[in-house]
């Protein structure tokens, strides 16, 4: 199993109060799976995704990634995980506004210690993959929303991580552009990537092979997607 989550809890501390955001989560996700996470607003989808992406830590429970107990890792090791094993795609892209598309895509490789030449090569490849080879020297503000998200995807892909995590990747895009992005995810999945996508839209979730439904911090249902035929 690529991901194994056992009895996971997450509470947010707000002053005196502990607000439970996730309770009793048990999930297993295999390599090359394509999973959609759905649920009402405030149900804890992003909270779960942040834990999966090693951006946040659970209050209790176990998270095994590729056989490694993530809760045992120190900050540097978590950074390395984020850098090499996980590609994170955000709803609002989170590109650095002063860097060009190419520089944004190169950034994970900078922290991986790759040399300039290697960075360049790989970043260009990643941009080609998302169909943006002709926009490399554009700044994020000079790109459309869909293009920005493609740059963000290229950045997530560039260090060839085992898994792509996308928190509402189409949330800020119109539906046509959203469909294009999903088609790209489809292709990436076929090439062997593991993909987890949070979405509100059934249309988007339909691309996935499995849907996990979260409600009030608990897993409400976890079902294979019958509309898809593999």
């Amino acid at each position: 199993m690529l991901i194994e989550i056992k009895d996971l809890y997450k509470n947010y501390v707000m002053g005196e109060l502990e607000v439970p955001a996730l309770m009793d989560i048990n999930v297993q996700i295999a390599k090359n799976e394509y999973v959609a996470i759905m649920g009402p607003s405030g149900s804890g989808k992003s909270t779960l995704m942040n834990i999966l992406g090693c951006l946040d830590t659970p209050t209790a429970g176990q998270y095994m990634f590729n056989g490694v107990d993530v809760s045992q890792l120190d900050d540097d090791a978590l950074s390395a995980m984020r850098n090499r094993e996980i590609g994170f795609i955000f709803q609002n892209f989170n590109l650095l506004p002063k860097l060009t598309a190419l520089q944004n895509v190169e950034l994970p490789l900078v922290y991986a210690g790759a040399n300039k030449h290697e960075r360049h090569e790989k970043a260009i490849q990643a941009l080609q993959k998302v169909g943006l080879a002709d926009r490399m020297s554009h700044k994020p503000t000079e790109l459309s929303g869909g293009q920005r998200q493609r740059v963000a995807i290229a950045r997530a892909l560039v260090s060839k991580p085992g898994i792509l995590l996308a928190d509402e990747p189409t949330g800020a895009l119109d539906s046509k552009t959203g469909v294009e992005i999903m088609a790209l995810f489809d292709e990436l999945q076929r090439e062997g990537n593991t993909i987890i996508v949070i979405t509100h839209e059934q249309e988007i979730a339909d691309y996935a092979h499995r849907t996990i439904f979260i409600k009030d911090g608990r897993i409400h249902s976890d079902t294979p997607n019958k509309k898809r035929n593999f």
Partner: protein
Amino acid sequence: MQYEENIRVALRALIDHKFRSFLTMLGIIFGVASVITMLSIGEGAKREAIAKYQDLGVNNIIIREKKLSDQELEEVRAKFSPGLSLQDASVIKEIVPGVIYTSSQSELSTDVKYTDKSAKSTVIGITPEFVNIMNYKTGQGEFIGEKHYDAALRVCVLGAGVARTLFGSENSIGKMVKIGDQWFEVSGVLQSKTLFTETVGELAARDLNNDIYIPLSTFLNRFTHENMLASQIQQITVQVASSERLVEASTLINGILQRHHFNNEDYNIVIPFELLRQEEKERQIYNFLLGAIAAISLVVGGIGIMNIMLATVMERTREIGIRRAIGARKSDIMSQFVTEAVAISITGGIIGVILGVTLSLSVSLFTDIKTVIPLYSVLVAFGFSVIVGISFGYLPAKNAANLKPIESIRYE
């Protein structure tokens, strides 16, 4: 993360906020500039002092007759003091250990003439040892030597200033000049000497370039002092083997002279090296004050940097979050922001060095104060600005590194 990348990011941040960065740098700029300017003034003064004392000889003890009024002179003669004499010189050389040379000189202010030109000058009668003690060099011709002295020849060596006044660009060697009412043949002309613009101990300031040197034997034969009671010679210069022996030798010399002059204090003993040391000590106070000013201005500059870096970190919380999310370690963020602080302080340091150098050059150009910029001052000022950048950039960078990735990426 590669260092080069850090520097690139830091320089871009600096250029993106030119005006803000410049304001931040001001403290460092003024700190560094003032250190360099003040050090250059101090160094200029030091060089001048050293040159001045070097002319007098660092291993020398100078015994000069005290300037006395006619009445005082009568008094000391009545108390049996013969005044400074050649005999004093030979006793000193015989008795005082460590003395290698003594040179006696007698002086007279007089006019010197060549054709229709005339100059006011001091004629100095010297012994051949003079040349061993003072490193005077002739520009042309030769200096007074044994042969001139032993035969009491009427030859003279002109200071560069007198030579210029009397001869202009004309060759003076072998020409006859009239010193007082005596004719002398010019045997040499001295190289130009630095002006003796300050009084050193008991030695009055004067322009050495206007002196004329003749053999002391000739002097004593040909010239008489106006006052019949004047001493035979005006100065004895004693050279000891090393500067460590100066104090001991001068104590002994004083004892001898007291005895020979029957306890009449009609002479002064000046040790140029001791005066130099004393001046150096005074300069240390100046240097200490300077150091304090520099430290304060650099600390103020550092606080400015810390302030702006704290604001920068706040402002760029999201950027930090994004970098952390894609794999930057704490140490990467840390070094990024320290590099930024150092970039600001180094740039400030460079501008400060340029400003400081410009200032000290202008001081030297537009005032009488001589300045010399010692290389170490540039290095020290620069080194300190780097240290300030690192130490005051540390805390903000630490704050940046310790931000939680998930919280900072959500920061609005």
